[in-house]
């Protein structure tokens, strides 16, 4: 239950969620463990066997671009291999996650032993000044997992609906009207909300339901920036990055993808995160009363050492024909861990959150905060932890105590 007597909650008026693409926690933030041991990152000794059986250790050699081509497989069967190391339920009905199949999985795509090792590379903190700074200056989640051990669209569905309606793939063509999106709920309850895609040429990944049927919910990233500068930010904003390198349709030049999906340049995503943060941070009428959550939709096939935990079953079953494995999936365990950072001047520096979260926590949090009692939600969303309670400092941090970024 959210403690509404907290000063940060009493001041809160806006929640902004930015969902990036396809990077694991250890890949982006694992290096922070050396300096901040309370962050559950990498010791440098974690290893996976490669296709020859030789152990390969993690390496701080991640590059911004060019290293993860081809795009590492992150569909359900590949993630099953990554988590369970290739042990099937036929071999061991009681198999447990060992996180030892990442190199084998990447090898399957190109059959290059040397290239397969790159899936264990991670960034040093210095190479990611924005994400690393935000993670250590505000709150970082040690256990925020993707909702499904699978690809983007079914995971993003959890952020919008608290469920993927039984889907474990990219084919989320139909939805069960039993559960409304968080945006539909908020509008019905008289609250303001928008999904901001980057531009019309990048558009939204939420095509089938919302963009098709409720286009008035959408705006561009420029609209988000304008809303910030005019103090017209909705109560809840969900931001999507630019998913492609393309020409600005208005002739304004090249627009580089900012989603950090391999093999897009990670620096463009860093600048995009900074631009979202700056739009709030540099507006004294927004900064005291806005919470920003930055989360990644799934791990993109890249190594993480934390074993995904069991979770409340979602009430759906994906059959083997859908999972691409010999087994059905009961939505009773989470996907691989992803980076997630919560930002507000009411959060203490170096807060580390150890409770378990997943993307259903997003609609769960917004529903708890803005609507209250609401029963027509998936079992996963009802069981999900909510995160606004971490905005819990008794006083607001001063401007000079909070980081600022300047994009080159």
């Amino acid at each position, binding site marked *: 239950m959210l403690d509404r007597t907290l000063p940060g909650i009493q001041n809160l008026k806006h929640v902004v969620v930015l969902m990036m*693409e396809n990077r694991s926690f250890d890949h982006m933030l694992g290096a922070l463990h050396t300096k901040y041991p309370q962050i559950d990152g990498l010791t440098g000794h974690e290893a996976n066997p490669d296709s020859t059986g030789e152990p390969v250790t993690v390496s701080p050699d991640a590059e*911004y*671009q060019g290293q993860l081509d081809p795009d590492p497989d992150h569909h359900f069967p590949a993630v099953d291999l990554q988590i369970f190391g290739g042990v099937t339920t036929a071999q061991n009905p009681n198999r447990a996650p060992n996180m030892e199949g990442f190199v084998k999985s990447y090898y399957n795509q190109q059959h290059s032993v040397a290239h397969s090792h790159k899936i264990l590379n991670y960034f040093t903190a210095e190479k990611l*000044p924005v994400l690393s*700074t935000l993670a250590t200056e505000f709150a970082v989640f040690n256990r925020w997992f993707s909702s499904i051990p699978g*690809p*983007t*669209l079914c995971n993003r569905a959890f952020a919008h609906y608290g469920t993927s309606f039984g889907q474990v793939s*990219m*084919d*989320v063509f139909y939805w069960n009207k039993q559960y409304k999106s968080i945006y539909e709920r908020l509008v019905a309850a008289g609250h303001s909300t928008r999904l901001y895609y*980057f*531009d*019309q*040429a*990048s*558009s*939204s*990944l939420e*095509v*089938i339901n919302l*963009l*098709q049927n409720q*286009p*008035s919910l*959408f*705006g561009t*990233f*420029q609209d988000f*920036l304008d809303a910030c500068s005019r103090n017209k930010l909705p109560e809840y904003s969900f931001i999507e990055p*630019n*998913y*492609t*390198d*393309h*020409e*600005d*349709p*208005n*002739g*304004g*030049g*090249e*627009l*580089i993808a900012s989603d950090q*999906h391999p*093999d897009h340049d990670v*620096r*463009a995503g*860093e*600048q*995009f995160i*900074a*631009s979202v943060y700056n739009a709030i941070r540099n507006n004294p009428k927004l900064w005291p009363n806005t919470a920003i959550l930055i989360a990644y939709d799934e791990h993109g096939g890249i190594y993480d050492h934390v074993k995904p935990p069991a979770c409340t079953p979602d009430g759906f079953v994906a059959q083997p024909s859908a999972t691409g494995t010999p087994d059905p999936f009961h939505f009773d365990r989470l996907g691989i861990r992803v980076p997630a950072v919560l930002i507000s001047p009411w959060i203490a520096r170096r807060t580390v959150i150890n409770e378990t979260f997943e993307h259903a926590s997003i609609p769960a949090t917004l529903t708890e905060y803005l609507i209250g009692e609401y029963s027509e939600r998936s079992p996963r969303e009802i069981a999900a932890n909510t995160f606004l309670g971490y905005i819990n400092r008794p006083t607001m941090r001063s401007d000079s105590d909070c*980081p*600022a*970024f*300047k*994009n*080159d």
Partner: protein
Amino acid sequence: MDAIRVPAPPRQAFNMHRPISDLIKSQIKHLKHVEYRLPQDLRDSLPKHPLVTENDAAIYIAAMTGLLLNRPAAPKLIKMPAKKVGTPVSAPSTRTLSFAASVEKKTAAKSSPPRKKKTASKKLTAPASTRRKKS
């Protein structure tokens, strides 16, 4: 606390001729799913080029998004020449048409009653921080 510098990607990081990822293929697949249920005249207004590169995809996605928002797509979109590598999402059409011309003509010719005002963006400009100068 001094502002922390955030380095920009180098020029060569931008590659609009990059073959589209599974993610963009899926986004297109979803848009095609919607497109096939549109009236034929609206479908005729959409670009028909093979969707191989990221810029190919962006042109189609912009048109479909504009259509879904019931507003004209970008007036200056031009089909960019692209290196044809990778697998198109849909079967290549034999038609090569000017996207800008086709969309403008069709949308201008529409006589359907205006729908209620959309709150989505009125312009396609991107923030300066994410825009790169044309060389």
